């Protein structure tokens, strides 16, 4: 009975195309590690996520000095990475790591990881412009605004509150765009290869 069952399952596997006439698998099973690496590489290239990771890593580096990262509408914009930071790589033994802690994004451990190709993929940031403070999370693939806390509303009427909230949301988005735009300008200039990248690499070595 058992032998008959085994024969049937062999036939089924052959009919499904899982095995050939010799009974061997038609496709080599990819091991878990190779699959994980392929997924990590696919994630890096999807929608040019690598450019987003470069952008967030550049922003982390630029924000460490606490100097304004850009000026928007003539007023300084300061950025502080102040919480959970997600790092991702497309190669190596570690393809993903998360650090927690208010000052962890600027820790030596993070710089060491950045130097090993684990770039910033998700970050919690605090953005200050014109005495308005916005807290939100960003990710390198979509640059969606997540878990955002907006500055306190000044209006009390429901309709005015809605308009003010929409305006503040648009401001958070426009400031994010301005930061991306500053990165893109630097990334496509000669300064990137000549000055920024060497400075970034040196900074990562501070670990």
């Amino acid at each position, binding site marked *: 009975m058992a032998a008959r069952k085994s024969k049937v399952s062999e036939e089924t596997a052959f009919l499904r195309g899982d095995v050939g006439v010799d009974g061997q698998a038609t496709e080599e099973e990819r091991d878990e590690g190779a699959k994980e690496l392929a997924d990590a*590489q696919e994630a*890096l*290239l999807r*929608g*040019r996520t*690598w*450019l*987003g990771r*470069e*952008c967030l*890593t550049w922003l982390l580096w630029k924000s460490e000095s606490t100097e304004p990262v850009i000026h928007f509408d003539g007023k300084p914009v300061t950025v502080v990475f102040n919480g959970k930071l997600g790092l991702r*790589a*497309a*190669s*190596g033994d570690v393809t993903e790591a998360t650090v927690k802690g208010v000052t962890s994004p600027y820790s030596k451990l993070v710089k060491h990881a950045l130097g*090993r*190709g684990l*770039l910033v993929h998700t970050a919690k940031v605090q953005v200050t412009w014109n005495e308005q403070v916005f807290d*939100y999370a960003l990710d390198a*693939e*979509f*640059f*969606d*605004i*997540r*878990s*955002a*806390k*907006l500055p306190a509303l000044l209006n009390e009427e*429901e*309709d005015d*509150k*809605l*308009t003010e*909230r*929409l305006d503040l*949301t*648009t401001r*958070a*988005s*426009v400031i*994010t*765009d301005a930061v*991306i*735009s500053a*990165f*893109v300008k630097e*990334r*496509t200039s000669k300064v*990137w290869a000549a000055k920024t*990248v060497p400075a*970034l*690499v040196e900074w990562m070595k501070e670990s």
Partner: protein
Amino acid sequence: MPIRRGSVNLARFRLEGDLPKDVKRWLQKGLAKAAFEPIDPKSDDERAAGFVELEQNDKTEFAAGNLFHGLHALFGWRVDRLKVPTNAMRAGMLEWGQAFEQKNGRPPGRRERAEQKETLKKALRAKQGPVTKVFEVSVDLTSRDVFVWATSRTVVEEAQGSLESVLEVKLIPRVPAAFLSPGVIDSLLPTKELFPEAP
């Protein structure tokens, strides 16, 4: 509603393409093309999605007074699901199976079970209301920013695709690559020093 209070979660796009002079009329007409239509309980559909007014999510007239708030257009992307819970189906089938056996002195055959399953499914669907979720969408008429107030990428992509189709525009995600012209972005490669062994 997250658009009124609480923490903000949204996907960001910019409208690209020539917009007509009467933007408000254009939006009203466009949204009506993909207005939400409820699931017919008699059908086999398990999901329906479309645009609705924000304050009254069963309305799809998109009257100017309900759609526009200052320089923003606000509306909803409504998703209804109508699925008979597996445990209700199982319990119903078990009860029917026992009654059938008692009456006929034999368990029901495969065909009888299949027929009863369909009858039961229809009966339960008729009794059950759909699960409704409404995700807000806001369009800034001056900056052309479009926000889909949702975290699920499936919902975001569905609302994006539908807006692109009915308004005949492109919604460009606000990612770094979108800030570059196609020629420039195609010539860029990951920075070697930052991505050792990049693909």
